[in-house]
């Protein structure tokens, strides 16, 4: 961690012109980086400089920049979302880097997440898993009374622990096997804890798992790396829950 207000950094950034381009690393150096800037703000400054030099800026995904939208997706120095635990790349500050440090930035790497350009990847595979079963049936007509459906505090809390998944894909990016078990497991576990999820409970786990298989993610080997990089700290209990839900659905 740097205590200085300004540091210089060397950046090794993955550049790829399009889905079919082979891609390569390009080196940049940036002086007077304010350590109170977020990592994405540092990239904004770099892009400003590139544009002033009439060069193509680096494409990277971002939206809310407050750690809740799940858009940012950078592998920073070999770790998805960078070196700080439970921190999305947008919430990572430059004070966590040393003066003169070389920082490697790569996109999520997985067959199921093809690179669109530079650091931007296509994460539609997650959306297709959600479409396959990540929904609940609701009665149409008048809105039901709030709290009409009793849910125990324990179940509500447990469902919330899984519902905080922002779908960023760091679990896939960091998994040595590129498995999507934590994402899919979190969605299944969340809905399995709530009465609203009950009507589709069995079909949901079958359909979502089947879609996950189709997307070309790898096997889960219980490395637990996904939990370690997850910016919201979802436990791999989600994966064990998905497995028990799947077995229950198969045998009934």
């Amino acid at each position: 961690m740097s205590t200085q207000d300004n540091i210089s950094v060397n950046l090794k950034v993955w550049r790829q012109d399009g889905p079919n381009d082979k891609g390569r690393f390009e080196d940049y150096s940036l002086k007077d980086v304010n350590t109170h800037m977020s990592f994405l703000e540092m990239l904004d400054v770099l892009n400003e400089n590139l544009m002033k030099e009439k060069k193509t800026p680096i494409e990277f995904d971002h939206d809310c920049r407050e750690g809740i939208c799940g858009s940012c997706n950078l592998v920073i120095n070999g770790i998805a979302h960078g070196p700080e635990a439970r921190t999305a790349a947008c919430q990572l500050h430059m004070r966590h880097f040393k003066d003169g440090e070389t920082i490697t930035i790569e996109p999520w790497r997985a067959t199921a997440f093809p690179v669109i350009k530079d650091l931007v990847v296509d994460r539609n595979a997650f959306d297709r898993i959600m479409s396959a079963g990540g929904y609940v049936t609701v009665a149409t007509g008048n809105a039901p009374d709030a709290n009409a459906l009793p849910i125990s505090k324990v179940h509500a809390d447990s469902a919330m622990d899984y519902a905080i998944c922002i779908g960023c894909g760091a679990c896939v990016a960091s998994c040595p096997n590129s498995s999507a078990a934590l994402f899919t497991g979190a969605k299944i576990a969340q809905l399995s804890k709530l009465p609203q999820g009950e009507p589709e409970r069995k079909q949901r786990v079958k359909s979502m798992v089947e879609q996950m298989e189709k997307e070309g993610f790898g096997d889960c080997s219980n490395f637990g790396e996904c939990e370690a990089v997850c910016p919201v700290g979802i436990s791999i209990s989600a994966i064990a829950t998905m497995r028990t839900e799947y077995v229950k659905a198969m045998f009934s």
Partner: protein
Amino acid sequence: MSSFAYALQTTIGRKILTGLTGIFLTLFLIAHLSGNLSLLIPDGGEAFNRYAEFLHDLGPLLWIAEIILVILFLTHAYIGISIYLNKKKARPVNYSYYKSQGGPSKQNFASRSMLISGSIILLFVILHVMHFKYHLFSPETYMTSYDGQEMVDLAKHVEVAFLNPWIVAAYSFVMILIGVHLKHGVWSAFISLGAKNPKITPVLYTVGGVVAILLAAGFLLLPLYIYINGGLS
């Protein structure tokens, strides 16, 4: 597409099969080790030889057990290898630099080398069966008799083998690898079979480590004892 046969081929079904076969193989190791340790009873190997004779006399029951063991080994190995091949397909372009975040991650030497440790163990198992069942490396068959009953002196066979420094070294190396494999394997099997209470899972990881150390140490005891002692007694 949600038949039982399909379910077994999904990443979930395969993981459950790996966990189940792994647990049965670990139980087999425990049974195997208790048989081996009977050699340490100072009776000139009589208990061990009688145990071997008892297993041998089971006849068809023994064959069934052997077939089940072969199926367990092959299923476990086949899925392990296919997980590795899937992994290559799921990420054809690797990171130029990759690091573990640490914390709750169980990524370590043991978990990352499951394919390598597993392959060496499989090769060892084949050689081990050739050695002790089919006498590949030491063709003599020693005989002994207890109370007038003739039987194969398997204890002598083991003693001769473990007086050879090369066999002791290779065997010990593989026993350490079995410990390394089980360090991740035992814990992983529990998670694959649905252990999900966050209060219990860290305990399971410790239990896995203890089981791994105990089994490896147990199997190491015999060759080291025989070699250092210059024989069984």
